[in-house]
């Protein structure tokens, strides 16, 4: 039986349907799982993505002439194969790609998580024969708390600094993580949050999708001498240690990422506080997903794929690693 997906130098390729999933070099037809930079590259001739992803992808890559936006579950035919997109629970509009031919069903998970996230559609289990799964956090040391619990910790940190007259600068990935934090916090408080420009520009697509978040104010709209004592500011990790931070003095820094789970990683980066919050699946979510899809063959991409592959092999599953260019949360 010929495989439905193979990997070549441009990305994950479906020969039967002649299209790529999240290719990293320019191709003719690209199905894009979500708008993160390591999945949505520019230069393809035609794009296929979810309706919710489409505005974000075009905001990042510029207006795309040939883009087809699909509803979750809406099928589209590529020759003899039928393709549909299903919620991945990673960020707004993120999708798994289901590919069906007469030989069976393959699913490319894209980035996903099972932990609840009020800022996107929850992950949907898509039964399949072969699953290509991400493994950014493919080690049993990774275990996530509910986002709500992390939001409580963030709020407590904010409170403490508020009493001390200090600002809190929380670094987080600009697309997905920032909005998730704003949505989680909206359940606990109604205080406004200040935003770095890179995050502020990614708020409208979430608002348009009806996601309830805390009110936000771009820092760029404030006076140079505005006092941020007691305020919370969200900024992308690239702003850490930059002169842009001076205006918030005195302040403490925090970082929200799955990598904050390990002390060494926390200490190396030099933030005052680490909040363990990830938009990727942890170890048990990976295993749960593989089991629930019923896949009897698994390919692993991103990060610690070797560990998961060996673990699955020892449990009698056919599994191997795919070397892709995806970066997971690396860029954070």
């Amino acid at each position, binding site marked *: 039986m010929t495989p439905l997906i193979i990997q070549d130098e441009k990305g994950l390729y479906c020969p039967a349907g002649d299209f790529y999933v999240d290719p990293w070099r320019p191709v003719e037809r690209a199905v894009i799982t979500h708008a993160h930079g390591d999945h949505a590259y520019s230069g393809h001739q035609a794009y296929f993505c979810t309706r919710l992803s489409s505005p974000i992808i075009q905001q990042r890559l510029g207006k795309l002439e040939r883009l087809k936006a699909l509803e979750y579950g809406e099928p589209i035919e590529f020759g003899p194969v039928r393709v549909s997109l299903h919620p991945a629970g990673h960020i707004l509009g993120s999708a798994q790609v289901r590919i069906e031919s007469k030989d069976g069903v393959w699913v490319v998970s894209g980035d996903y998580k099972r932990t609840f996230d009020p800022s996107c559609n929850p992950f949907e289990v898509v039964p399949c024969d072969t699953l290509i799964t991400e493994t950014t956090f493919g080690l049993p*040391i990774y275990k996530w708390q509910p986002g709500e619990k992390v939001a409580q910790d963030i709020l407590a940190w904010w409170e403490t600094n508020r009493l001390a007259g200090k600002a809190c600068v929380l670094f987080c990935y600009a697309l997905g993580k920032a909005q998730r934090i704003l949505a989680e916090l909206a359940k606990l408080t109604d205080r406004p949050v200040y935003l770095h420009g890179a995050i502020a520009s990614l708020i409208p697509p979430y608002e348009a999708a009806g996601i309830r978040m805390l009110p936000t104010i771009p820092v760029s709209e404030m006076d140079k001498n505005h006092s941020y004592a007691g305020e919370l500011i969200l900024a992308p990790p690239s702003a850490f240690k930059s002169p842009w931070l001076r205006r918030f003095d005195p302040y403490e820094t925090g970082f929200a990422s799955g990598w904050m789970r390990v*002390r*060494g990683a*926390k*200490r190396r*980066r*030099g933030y*005052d506080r680490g909040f363990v919050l990830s938009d990727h699946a942890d170890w048990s979510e990976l295993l749960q997903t593989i089991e629930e899809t019923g896949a009897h063959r698994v390919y692993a991409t991103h990060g*610690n794929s070797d*560990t998961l592959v060996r673990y699955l092999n020892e449990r009698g599953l056919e599994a191997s690693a795919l070397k892709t260019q995806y970066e997971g949360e690396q860029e954070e």
Partner: protein
Amino acid sequence: MKAFTTLYEKLDMTTSTNAKVLAMVNYFATVPPQDAAWALYFLTGRRLKRLISSRMLREWALEMTGMPKWLYEDAYEAVGDTAETIALLLDGGRTTDEAETILLSEWMMQRILPLQNMTEREQYDAVTRWWKMLDMREMFTLNKLLTGALRVGVSQNLVVRAIAEIAEQPTAVIAHRLMGNWEPTEAFFIQLISPEAEVSDISRPYPFFLASPLEQPLETLGNPADWLVEWKWDGIRSQLIRRGQETHLWSRGEDLVTDRFPEISDHAALLPDGTVLDGEILAFQNEKPLPFAVLQRRIGRKKLTKSILEEAPVAFLAYDLLEFNHEDWREKPLEQRRRQMEQLVHQLGGPFRVSPAVQVQSWEQATVLREESRERNVEGFMLKRLDSTYQAGRKRGTWWKWKIDPYTVDAVLIYAQAGSGRRANLFTDYTFAVIHEGQLVPIAKAYSGLSDKEIQRLDNWIRRHTLDKYGPVRVVEPCHVFELAFEGIAQSSRHKAGLALRFPRILRWREDKTKDEADTLENLHQLLNNHIAIREGA
């Protein structure tokens, strides 16, 4: 355990000394004295004998979870610490909250210390039961306590400051009360923070007065005649106490070393009662110091045989007198203390010597003389103001150590390249940078200084954290800090940094430091300027 764990995390996470002191003050003010005593025990760097080995802990975790060993190893590789790996792996397995209210002191006295008298099976049952009672963070603390590896990122000075604040006592009083041997008991802590002077313990040493490295030009010190110049000995800084017809010899690390140096302790019986000397223990022969390595032979041995005593003869070079006739002399000027000390030591003889005053007429002359340091097996000069009192801890202003090299700098690893020969497959050639206006500026390449194990670990890390490749050069995530030693510093227009280091080498991997704690280019330029100033002065 919860409160202590939170304190530990706070100290671990912040680099602000004020925040550290505040965290300790809050902790000590809210926990019962018996817990405060144990916390203090760990904060001042005291450690329990290792009760359980890391290997044992790992075996037990594997046995309890049924996890394959290779999977544990993969996890360990990403974490790099047994106590933490186990805590992360077992996280979420808490079945009872009965441990919520157990105090740190109860953990220590009723649970952890009694492990010593248990069989391995009983230990396994106890430890695996505790794991099910604790959350991840507390499990980490427990594992660290069990393996005797709890290291807290806080200096003795800060601990003293925090206690002094609670006790509303001067730091010097607290520092003194914390010296020497004490047991982590409720009574001890209450005594420590009490307003009344405690019953004196005859073995208790005074806090050592530590000199600061001289960074400014010598000329700023003023007239050389106001200063005592001594060689900086490369031995063991010690305090010799003769009280109540007993002798106690303390090292600066607050270890009692009386038995390690019987010829010194025995001869000290000739001192008048109520005398305390500050000095240096050296391997010493023919009125000359021997290299520190000779002294090390002596320290390393469990038993002191006759041949060891002969191979590594020692002397006590006295340089200060802290107590005389049972009277605290620390507030008297150095000149007076020294005169009395010289008299005592000359009468005493035996292995006792006076650390000689080096006569210099000018700083220029001192600079020239200092060049003899290496030949003399000394580390440079000590400069002490003749009117200085004997203070506690490291206080700047009156005591300076003017060391010969190496100079050191804390720098960040930015590039790596494969080595050659035996290490052709490993990344062993490193480029380091310091901070300049928020950017990293390369300052040196260094090849040697790490152990094989460290090289392996770093190599592994480099492979997984390469940001970019230029030919054979890997650009790595800038986060690891290394202490580099170098022999000299010179201006250089060829280098972006504007200076070049002579013979840079890696002294050690500063895993306790983050990138922002690395030195700045300004630090180096200042050093360069001083270097020039000193040379021009000579």
